[in-house]
C-alpha cells in the first residue's frame, strides 16, 4: 500500500506552511481591499482552513482510489465540485459570523462580489493538490512495482545459483568413502589422511554457500584438495598440472565456479579414455580478466563435444551469465584429443 504524502512529517510541515503563507497573503490582500484587519484575518482563516482540510481529505482518499489514466478528467470534475462546496461552506460560516459586525453589510456585499475570484483561486488550489497527489501516488506505485519485480528477480536468481552450485556428485562421495573403507585395513594412516581431505573438501563446500567472492588462491587450494582425493581413488592413472601466475592469486572470483569445470574434465578424462590422464589447470591475467583454462584428454571417436558449451558445461555458462550478465565468458576448444574449457572472470 502506498502511503499518503501527508503521512510523512516533512510533507505535512510543508503542507501546513503552505497554507500559512496563503492565509497571510489573503489577509494582506483583503486589508488592501479596505477590510478591517480582524475581518480580513477571520475570512482568510476560515476559507483557507476549509480549503486545506478539503485538500488533505482529497489527497488522503486518493490513497484508496486513484483514477486510471483514461479517467484523469474525473480529477477535474471532483476539483470543480469540491471548490463549489468549499465556497458554499465559506459563505454559510462567514456571512452569519461577520455580517453582524459594524462593517457587516459592506463585508456581505464584498463577499458576494468576490465570488468568481474566490472560486478561481480555490479551484486552482484544489486542482493543483489533486494533480500533485496523482503524480505522487503513481510514482510511488511505480517504484513499489519495480521494487517487487527486482525482489522477485533477485530471489529467482539466488535460487538458481544455489541450485547450480548444489551439484556435488554423490558418485564422488560414495566412491571416496569406499576408498577409505579399503584403506582402513591395510593403510590406516592413509585412510585417516583421506578422511581429513574429504572433510576439508566438504567443509569448504558448505562454507562457500554464503560467500560471494573468493580469492583464486583459495579456489586453487580447494581444487588441489579435490584432485588429491581423486588421485587416491584412481591411483597412478590420474596426474595433474596446476600453473597459476603469481599476479592473479589474489584476484577474486565467484565460489564453486572452477570445481564443476574440473569435475567435468575429470569425468571426461577418466571415463572417456582408458589411458593415464593428465588434467591441466592454468590461470593468468588477461587484460581486465582472470583467464583460467582447464584441459583434459578425450576420445574424439566416441565423444562429440558440441561447439560453445560442450559436455556438461551449460550450467557454468548460465551461472556466469547470471553473475556478470555476459554470455561470452566461457568457451571451449578442441585440439585433437584435448578438450579445453576457458573461463574469463571480469575484475
Amino acid at each position, binding site marked *: 500500500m502506498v502511503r499518503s504524502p501527508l503521512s510523512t512529517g516533512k510533507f505535512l510541515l510543508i503542507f501546513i506552511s503552505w497554507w500559512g503563507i496563503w492565509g497571510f497573503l489573503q489577509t494582506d490582500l483583503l486589508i488592501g481591499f479596505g477590510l478591517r484587519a480582524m475581518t480580513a484575518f477571520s475570512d482568510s482563516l476560515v476559507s483557507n482552513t476549509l480549503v486545506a482540510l478539503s485538500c488533505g481529505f482529497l489527497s488522503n482518499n486518493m490513497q484508496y482510489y486513484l483514477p486510471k489514466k483514461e479517467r484523469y478528467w474525473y480529477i477535474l470534475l471532483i476539483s470543480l465540485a469540491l471548490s463549489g462546496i468549499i465556497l458554499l461552506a465559506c459563505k454559510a460560516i462567514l456571512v452569519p459570523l461577520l455580517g453582524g459586525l459594524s462593517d457587516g453589510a459592506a463585508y456581505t456585499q464584498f463577499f458576494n462580489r468576490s465570488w468568481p475570484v474566490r472560486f478561481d483561486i480555490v479551484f486552482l488550489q484544489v486542482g493543483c493538490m489533486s494533480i500533485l497527489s496523482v503524480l505522487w501516488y503513481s510514482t510511488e506505485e511505480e517504484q513499489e512495482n519495480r521494487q517487487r519485480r527486482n525482489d522477485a528477480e533477485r530471489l529467482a536468481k539466488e535460487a538458481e545459483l544455489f541450485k547450480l552450485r548444489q551439484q556435488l556428485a*554423490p*558418485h564422488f*562421495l*560414495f*566412491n571416496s*568413502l*569406499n*576408498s*577409505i*573403507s*579399503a*584403506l582402513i*585395513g*591395510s593403510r590406516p594412516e592413509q585412510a585417516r589422511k583421506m578422511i581429513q581431505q574429504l572433510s576439508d573438501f566438504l567443509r569448504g563446500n558448505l562454507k562457500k554457500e554464503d560467500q560471494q567472492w573468493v580469492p583464486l588462491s583459495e579456489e586453487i587450494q580447494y581444487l588441489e584438495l579435490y584432485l588429491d582425493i581423486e588421485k*587416491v*581413488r*584412481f*591411483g597412478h*592413472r590420474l596426474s595433474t598440472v596446476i600453473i597459476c601466475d603469481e599476479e592473479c592469486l589474489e584476484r577474486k572470483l565467484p565460489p564453486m565456479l572452477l570445481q564443476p569445470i574440473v569435475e567435468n574434465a575429470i569425468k571426461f578424462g*577418466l*571415463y*572417456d*579414455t*582408458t589411458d593415464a590422464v593428465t588434467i591441466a589447470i592454468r590461470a593468468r591475467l588477461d587484460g581486465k580478466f582472470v583467464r583460467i583454462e582447464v584441459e583434459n584428454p578425450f*576420445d574424439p*571417436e*566416441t*565423444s*562429440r563435444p558440441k561447439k560453445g558449451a560442450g559436455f556438461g558445461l551449460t550450467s557454468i555458462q548460465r551461472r556466469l551469465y547470471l553473475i556478470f550478465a555476459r554470455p561470452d565468458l566461457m568457451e571451449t576448444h578442441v585440439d585433437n584429443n584435448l578438450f579445453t574449457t576457458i573461463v574469463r572472470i571480469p575484475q
Partner: protein
Amino acid sequence: MSTNTANIKAIIIDDEPLARMIVQEYLATYPEINVLQECSDGFEGIKAIQQWRPDLIFLDIQMPKINGFEMLELVEEPPAVIFTTAFDEYAIKAFESHAVDYLLKPFNKERFDKSLRKWIDRRAGVAANPAAKAPAADTDNDPTGALLETAAQSPAQQQRIVVKTGGKIKIIPIEDIHYLEAADDYVKIHTHNGAFLKNRTMGYFEKALDGTQFVRTHRSYILNVQQVTRIDPYEKDSHLCILQSGAQVPVSKAGYVKLKSVLGL
C-alpha cells in the same frame, strides 16, 4: 560340472584400485574362491572372461569407455555377476526391477558375506539338483538379459551402442547410426563406417532408442530420421526411404504413419 564348492574361479572388474583391493580383502576368508585376475576396465574384463571362463565376476558399473552393463552385453554366456556400484540411479533401478543382488559402495564384510553366501548356496543347490536350473539358452528366462535391457534405457547408454567386431570393441555414437536392419538373431547396425552386428532383437532397439530420432518403419527396419532425404512411393501401400548415404529403407503402411508423425508432416 564339478559339484563341490572348491576352486571357484573369480575375476574382479573395477576401475578403482582400492575398490578392487577391498573385494580381495573380503575374499581372503574364502579360500575356495580363486581370484584369477583384476581388471581396470571393461575391455580387459571381456578378454579376461574369455580367457579364464570364470564362475563369478565382481563388476563395477561406472567404468571408462564402456560401463559394466555394456561389457556384459558383449560377453557370450556371461558368468554369474555380483554388481558393485557407488551411485547410479539407473543401475539401481535395473537391479531392483529384476531382483538382482548388488553391493552398494561402501559395503561392509557382513553385507559382502551375505551376497556371496547366497550365491554359493544357490550354486550348490543347482549342482545338487540340475533339473532346477533354467535352460541357459532360454532368453525369456534369462535374468541377465532382462537386466541389460532395462539398463540400456539409462541416459548414458542411450547415447551409444557397443559392438564387437572381429575381436575388437567398437563404440558407436547414436548419431552415427543410419539405420538398423534385422538379420536372423542379430541386428545389423549400418553406419558411415560400415555395418556391425549386435546380438539383440529389433524390439529391444525400438525400446532402447530415442523415439523422436529413431522410427521403426518396417518389421525389419529402424531408421534415423535425421538421415532421411526423400520418401518415395513404392509398391501399393508401401514407401521407400532414401537416406543421405543413398541407402534405401523399406517403409510399411504402419511405418509410414509413424514416420510422418515423427517428421511432423
